[in-house]
């Protein structure tokens, strides 16, 4: 999971469920069904969110949650390998799936008349998946290519992977979602099969349907297609945590690149109780004050005025099953070092801790949140996403209005207090990219290498 920039994080946090039509019902087998009616366009989205992600994996088998996500398209008795995508395509649909630390989700976007089809296919693979070895053997190669492309050959992604493996010592966020390459190499179809049998069950899932639908009809149809799938006894989930970090940690990553890069990550809390917690809201606002628009503190000071960085960004996501990070990242300007950038960033953090934020900055962030609330309604898909993310993070769509209210109530004092507490070197991990030259730098390609 990449760092979310603030606008995204804020949009993610807030929502208008208070006025929107959201309905919920739990089937007798434990499947939680949530319907968000939105009649602006004759379309719908079905998303099935399994409450299992890479953080539920064991050492030596990292990446299996994501591999299974790929295998979910490899066929059932009724719908052989490759047919799922073909059938959805023939109905004019779009479909995909994604895996994160906290969840695994599958979705289809279709005309409103096609809900039955979507439910028939999705419910079928909830319990009838066939795990053919020959399909697994091909797909695991695909996943290794995905890892090479997304992580191994991308210096910033690689650095972020190593940063997380340093910041999290005990919590499974230590491991990348896509898995370590050696684990992928050692993985078998039996591992994927076991994962599927253990976790894929109606009582471990939330079904979200959003769009031009009627809740009663959706519930009836869900009962018909998903209701007959038996519940499974899920393994006990042990509480996992992260003991306090006892001092600053620094890592260096070498990779082919031109520019160095700096990431500073502070341990930070995430939302547990939407009504009682206050720090995650203060942190969202803090992120907005630092990086909510291009004249916010960091860009204004580091990029525009001091010109010590060519880019700067902040990432914080308050919605997660596990402990969070408040992340600052920056690329030094030419002639500047990561040390210069780190000093400049620390200076800004110190200013904030010392003097706090002003009323205007605070109002600005809140105005963006309020407007984002309206803009969000332009996307049915996004509204469903938000519900699924909350539900799989141990929260609920019902928290949405609470979160919005709490966010609007954040005070300048709270922002300063949370900054003072969090920007502590003992809880900090710093990663720097040490750029390596390409062995044969193609400065002037196209000339000599051009062969007809």
């Amino acid at each position, binding site marked *: 999971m990449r760092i979310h920039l603030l606008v995204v994080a804020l949009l993610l946090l807030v929502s208008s469920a208070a006025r929107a039509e959201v309905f919920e019902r739990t089937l007798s087998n434990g499947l939680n069904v949530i319907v968000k009616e939105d009649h602006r*366009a*004759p379309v719908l989205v079905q998303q099935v969110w399994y409450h299992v992600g890479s953080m539920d994996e064991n050492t030596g088998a990292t990446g299996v949650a994501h591999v299974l996500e790929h295998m979910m398209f490899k066929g059932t008795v009724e719908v052989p390998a490759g047919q799922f995508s073909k059938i959805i395509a023939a109905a004019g649909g779009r479909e995909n799936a994604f895996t994160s630390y906290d969840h695994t989700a599958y979705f289809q976007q279709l005309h409103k008349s096609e809900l039955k089809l979507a439910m028939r296919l999705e419910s079928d693979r909830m319990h009838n998946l066939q795990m053919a070895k020959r399909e697994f053997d091909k797909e695991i190669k695909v996943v290794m290519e995905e890892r090479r492309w997304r992580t*191994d050959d991308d210096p910033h992604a690689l650095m972020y992977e190593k940063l997380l493996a340093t910041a999290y010592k005990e919590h499974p966020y230590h491991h990348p979602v896509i898995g370590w390459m050696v684990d992928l190499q050692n993985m078998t179809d039996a591992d994927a099969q076991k994962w599927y049998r253990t976790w894929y069950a109606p009582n471990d899932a939330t079904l979200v349907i959003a769009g031009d639908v009627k809740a009663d009809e959706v519930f009836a149809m869900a009962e018909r297609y998903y209701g007959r799938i038996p519940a499974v006894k899920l393994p006990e989930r042990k509480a996992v945590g992260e003991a306090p970090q006892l001092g600053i940690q620094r890592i260096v990553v070498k990779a082919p690149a031109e520019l160095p890069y700096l990431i500073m990550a502070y341990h930070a809390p995430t939302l547990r109780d939407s009504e009682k917690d206050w720090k995650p809201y203060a942190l969202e606002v803090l992120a907005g004050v630092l990086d909510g628009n291009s004249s916010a503190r960091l860009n*204004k000071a580091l990029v525009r005025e001091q010109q010590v960085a060519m880019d700067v960004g902040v990432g914080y996501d308050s919605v997660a099953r596990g402990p969070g990070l408040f992340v600052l990242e920056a690329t030094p300007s030419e002639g500047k070092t990561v040390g210069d950038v780190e000093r400049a960033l620390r200076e800004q953090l110190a200013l904030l801790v010392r003097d706090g934020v002003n009323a205007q900055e605070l109002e600005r962030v809140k*105005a963006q949140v309020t407007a984002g609330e309206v803009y969000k309604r*332009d996307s049915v898909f996004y509204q469903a996403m938000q519900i699924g993310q909350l539900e799989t993070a141990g929260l609920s769509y019902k928290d949405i209005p609470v979160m919005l209210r709490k966010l609007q109530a954040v005070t300048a004092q709270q922002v300063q207090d949370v900054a003072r507490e969090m920007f502590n070197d003992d809880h900090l991990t710093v990663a720097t990219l040490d750029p390596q030259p*390409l*062995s044969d730098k193609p400065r002037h390609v196209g000339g000599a290498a051009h*062969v007809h």
Partner: protein
Amino acid sequence: MFTRFLSFAILLCAANAALATPQIQHWEAPSGARVYFVEDHSLPMLDVAVDFPAGSGYDVAGKVGVANLTYGMLDLGAQGLSEDEVASKLADIGAQMSGQFDDDRAGLRLRTLSNPAERDVALDILGRCLQWPLFPEPVLAREKARLIAALKEEETQPESIANKAFDKAVFGVHPYGWHVEVADVEKIQRAELDSFYRAHYGANTAVVALMGDVTRAQAEAIAQRLTASLPAGGADPRVPAVMIRIKPSEQRIPHPASQSHILTGAPGVARNDEDYFPLYVGNYILGGGGFVSRLMNEVREKRGLAYSVYSYFIPMQQPGLFEIGLQTKKDQADESLRLVRKVLREFVDKGVTEKELRAAKQNIIGGFPLRIDSNRKILDYLSVIGFYELPLTYLDDFTRNVDKVTPRQIHDAFKRRIDPDALATVIVGAPEDKAGAAK
């Protein structure tokens, strides 16, 4: 987030008949700007886009990068507003400004609440950025330095290296093939931005798209207010002609990455071309249709050679790219490239089956409602319809145009357009033992 496959959000104008399409209102503002408007009061918000024929295709030799920097500087200081004020005043009312820049188009986008208090401030800021940009000298110096650093970084990353070499191989000396170099940026002067702006940001070539919660009368006033004080313009709005036929080429560029990045293709099709629909529907079958395309099936599903493999046409004012791309670990690069070439050759030689075409139409036509299910998507269509002067009935006609396509038309269009023996190919991170070898 790890997704099952990569989908490309290439803007392909598409649409359906069974569904009520948005009612597009069109007029010319007193300023001369062409205006496209869809009135919709379901959400209290307004989206606006103002575009000009001022993309990188309008750069001239020796001054590459001027178009890009001109566009990039529009919101970094305007009459009465410093760059910080532009950003902070928009943020104060929760408005969002972004942009559009490609080989043809340059322009700004605004999303704001439609409540007059917010809307008026947001439109005032947009209007100033469009009509009175200042291109402040110190900001330009900083932006040049940032661009130079970004270019140097791009020169080390395989995907960027591949794209750059590929564009050059496909378009040769045409501006579509130019990529700005460090040396180009260094010599750019403020006066060049100013004169580019005055020549290319005229009202008579401006396209204003409005979508959302305003009335026709308000939309008329807004369009005029955003364009009345634009410069005289006068530059030729046509991009130079692209040479359709290219000589085959293959470049193998070393890189320490674990994968090879492979691109192969040629100039494709223009936005207004008669072959557009046969090529678009045909390409869905070849490599555009996500999991159900031939390329995906052969390269990934059958052999596990790549995570992502695709083909697309980018329809531009002049024929834009036809591109096939994939990434695979180095020792599979040659095998993958051979396979891709085989799939393409067979496709061009034999065309598509009735069954494939039926499936493609089912998806494109059946999926039409998804293409216009949000204000943002409709705004994008308005911009494209306006900019390329497509018929106002484009959305209404779209599904019919797709439905009319025959296997023969696809075969014929591909045969005339895509010569498998005359493609440009670039492999970055080529297998090392064969680096530099001829094909």
